């Protein structure tokens, strides 16, 4: 099953750009060899840390979005833990949240495009009647 994860990690601020690029490309190749796909990676730049981490006050933030299994993320985390340049990381699973956001957005768009009050009443009735189905039964209810 392909799940979407976000891995944000902080690299030491005294690293050059090439070292950082090398690190990122290593990680990307690890992901692709293990069977996942890298959706994007974003260099968020140097930021001041909220507290001192390993005697550093700043850090270079990198956000990596990838699709893969849970074991893939475990492997990535293990590699990040071993890498000396990475001082902190966090991995978050995002596909469940994205699905929920898409559902809410769809419901909101259908309300705007639809018949205004009628669609709102139908959506409210559907939300009360059917808990999980969402906006689909509203035409049936109307």
């Amino acid at each position, binding site marked *: 099953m392909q799940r979407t994860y976000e891995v944000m990690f902080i690299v030491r601020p005294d690293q050059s750009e090439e070292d950082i690029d090398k690190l990122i490309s290593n990680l990307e190749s690890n992901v692709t060899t293990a069977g996942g796909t890298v959706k994007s990676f974003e260099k968020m730049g140097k930021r001041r*840390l*909220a507290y001192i981490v390993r005697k550093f006050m700043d*850090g270079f933030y990198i956000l990596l979005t990838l699709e893969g299994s849970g074991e893939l993320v475990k492997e990535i985390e293990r590699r990040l833990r071993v890498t000396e340049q990475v001082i902190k990381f966090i991995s978050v699973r995002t596909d469940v949240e994205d699905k929920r*956001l898409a559902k809410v957005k769809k419901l909101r768009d259908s309300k705007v495009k639809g018949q205004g009050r009628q669609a709102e009443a139908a959506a409210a009735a559907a939300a009360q009647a059917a808990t999980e189905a969402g906006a689909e039964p509203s035409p049936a209810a109307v």
Partner: protein
Amino acid sequence: MAEETNTQAGSTETAAPATEQQPQHQQRPGGGPRGPRPAGRPGGGGGREGGRKFFRRKKVCKFCTEKIDSINYKDVRLLGQFVAESGKIVPRRLTGVCTPHQRRLSDAIKQARNIALLPFAGGR
């Protein structure tokens, strides 16, 4: 059905002062759920002067009114509005956030703290 219960409650309330002609003494224990609560407010305000002024405003949930769907650990500016100067998460009775949003907000703040976007404890 709701009207019937209302009239019944009204009738009992009108009956009570008629039977015992000390309405002020009767209403405090009679209005059981109502009694302690208004007593609680000045009680809380008298005990702590700073607590009283927050109870006056009827705050609404910022996320519900502005329809902010995703509370992410990455947007520090949004999260920082619900964090005190000391770094503590502000309780929802002060900010007026509704319960599900407060839960998501506190999860996001804790994630942000772990990745050093927000401090665990700073200032005083």
